[in-house]
Structure formats: structure tokens, C-alpha cells
């Protein structure tokens, strides 16, 4: 069976080779023919968003391996990426990165369209809403730490609201609220500090490269 398959595969590849060597223009254009296939032309910004979302995705997969004492209490490391993107490229890009990360993370971790997926989606939507408002705070006094804490509180608020409306419509849920609030405060602060650290480092890096460039020219 295996021999036969490999034989066939060999033959197939040989045929392909022959076809490619004899008339490459007969094989290639059919793949890229715009009439038979949909071609997307991603811009540089799309690539950038995808790269950032991939980075956030890596962090959320990493985080999935960390055991959690209570379902829903997670550090939310991927939000560090969202915070950095928000500070450097604005709210629209941050929203893209955040939502792409959630959909791709759901697919990757097998939770797509499960309650867990909708919980992170509602949390993210609430956070993005709050970030959209908080980014207008004066930058002189409010940095990523503020954004992170506010977004973390919005995140648990969104999640708990969905849990209450959809999964557990019971007042007993209120007993868990302080636990989630403490987690949001701690992880929000830590993530904000990490994001601020990276943003600062970037600033120093940019300054250094600029001075180097100036020195060269």
C-alpha cells in the first residue's frame, strides 16, 4: 500500500516535473488567474497587524500552559502587545490585533465558538471600548499602566456580565467579583508596567539609532 502510494506520488511528481520543464506557462497561470481565484493584496499595514497579532497569539498560547487557580483568572499577557500597539499605532490597529488574536487563539486552542471564546470576546470588546475612551486621557499624566488597569477592569466587567446574562444567571456570582477584581488590579498593573518598559526601551532604541545615524552622516 505504502509502496504503491509512493510510486504514484513519484509518478505524479515526475509528471508535474515534466509539465513544469516542458511548458511552465501552461501550469503556473491557472493558479494565479484572477478570474478563477480571489487574490488579496495585503498592504504593509496588514502585514504589520498580522505580525503583531501573531506575537500576541504566541503569548496567549504560552499562557494557556500556565495553570490557573480559578477559571478566568489569567495574566492576559497578550494584552501587553495590545497596549504597545495602542500606544504606537493607535486604537484601530490595537482593535485589529486584539480581535484577530482572539479568533486565531480560539482556533488554535480549540475553543472557537465555545463559551470560553465568547467570554474572551466580550471581555476584549469591553476593554477596547474603555481603551478607546482612556487613550484620550492626557499622555503627560496617564501612561500604559492606567490604560492597562482600566482595560483589565473593563475586561472582567464584560466577562462577568456575559456570564450572568448567559451562563450563570445567579446572584451568587457576586461572591466571585472581588476575586476577579483583585486579579484584574494585579495583572493589569503588571502588564501595564511591562508594556511601559518595552515602550521606553523602544524610545531609547530609536533615540540611539537616530544619534548613530546622525553620527554617521
Amino acid at each position, binding site marked *: 500500500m505504502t509502496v504503491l502510494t509512493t510510486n504514484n506520488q513519484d509518478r505524479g511528481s515526475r509528471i508535474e516535473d515534466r509539465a513544469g520543464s516542458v511548458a511552465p506557462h501552461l501550469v503556473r497561470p491557472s493558479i494565479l488567474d484572477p478570474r478563477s481565484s480571489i487574490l488579496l493584496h495585503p498592504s504593509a499595514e496588514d502585514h504589520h497587524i498580522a505580525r503583531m497579532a501573531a506575537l500576541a497569539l504566541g503569548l496567549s498560547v504560552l499562557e494557556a500552559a500556565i495553570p490557573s487557580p480559578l477559571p478566568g483568572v489569567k495574566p492576559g499577557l497578550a494584552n501587553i502587545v495590545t497596549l504597545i500597539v495602542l500606544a504606537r499605532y493607535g486604537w484601530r490597529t490595537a482593535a485589529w490585533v486584539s480581535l484577530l488574536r482572539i479568533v486565531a487563539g480560539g482556533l488554535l486552542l480549540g475553543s472557537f465558538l465555545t463559551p470560553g471564546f465568547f467570554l474572551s470576546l466580550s471581555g476584549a470588546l469591553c476593554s477596547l471600548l474603555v481603551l478607546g475612551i482612556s487613550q484620550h*486621557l*492626557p499622555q*503627560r*499624566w*496617564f*501612561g*500604559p*499602566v*492606567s490604560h492597562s*488597569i*482600566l482595560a483589565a*477592569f473593563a475586561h472582567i466587567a464584560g466577562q462577568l456580565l456575559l456570564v450572568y446574562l448567559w451562563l450563570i444567571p*445567579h*446572584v*451568587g456570582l*457576586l*461572591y466571585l*467579583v*472581588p476575586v476577579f*477584581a*483583585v486579579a*484584574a*488590579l494585579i495583572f*493589569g*498593573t503588571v502588564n*501595564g*508596567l511591562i508594556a*511601559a*518598559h518595552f515602550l*521606553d526601551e523602544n524610545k531609547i532604541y530609536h533615540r540611539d539609532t537616530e544619534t548613530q545615524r546622525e553620527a554617521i552622516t
Partner: protein
Amino acid sequence: MQIMAHIKTGDGIVLLLGTLFTAWLSATLWQGGVADKAIIRQGGKIFSAVPLSRNQIISVPGPLGISQITIHNLQARIASDPSLRQYCVRQGWLKQAGEIAVCLPNQVSVELSGSNKRYDSLNY
């Protein structure tokens, strides 16, 4: 030192407000409420409802014998009970509204309740 460099004035205010908010949440949501009344049941029926403000000892007769309930200093406990395992006696003082001690063998229970009962029928 380096951590402090990343916290701006507004960040400190947000952090402080967040801490206060969390503290407020735990204070309001985790407090069982002040109890002012003890409801004593025997065989599923209310035997008596007494205020916690007066210190007293109440004897409740059950199928096995007499359970003694002590009310002292706005707290209540089952001081003695003829039940075999003494679970309700070991439970000790009940302090907050909603707390309950049940002696199943003797069919006696003590429940503390506040002015506003926090539980709805969904709980039971």
C-alpha cells in the same frame, strides 16, 4: 526604582482608585450583613424567632432530647445537643446574617437573619 519611573501621576491615581474600588467591592459583596435575629426551627417549623440583643439560653425539645441554644453578645450557638456527632455544636458561634447551624438528628436548626434577607428562593 525603575518600576516607579513607569508610573506617572495619573497612573498612581488610577492604581489607588482601583485598589479602593476592589476594597469596596470586597467589603460590600463579602459581608454577610449584620444579623439582628435568630430563627430557631424544630422539625421544619419555626420554634421561635428571638432578637440577638438579649442574652439568653433557649431549650428546644426534639425527638432525641433537649438542644440548648445560647445567645450572647449578638452571637448565637448551639451549646449542647443530644445528637451523636455534635456537628452543630462544634460549628461554634454564628455571627453573620445567613449563617446557619443544623442538628439533623434532633431536627433543630438556628439561623441568623438580618433586616434584609439576602437570599432568594433560587438558592434553595
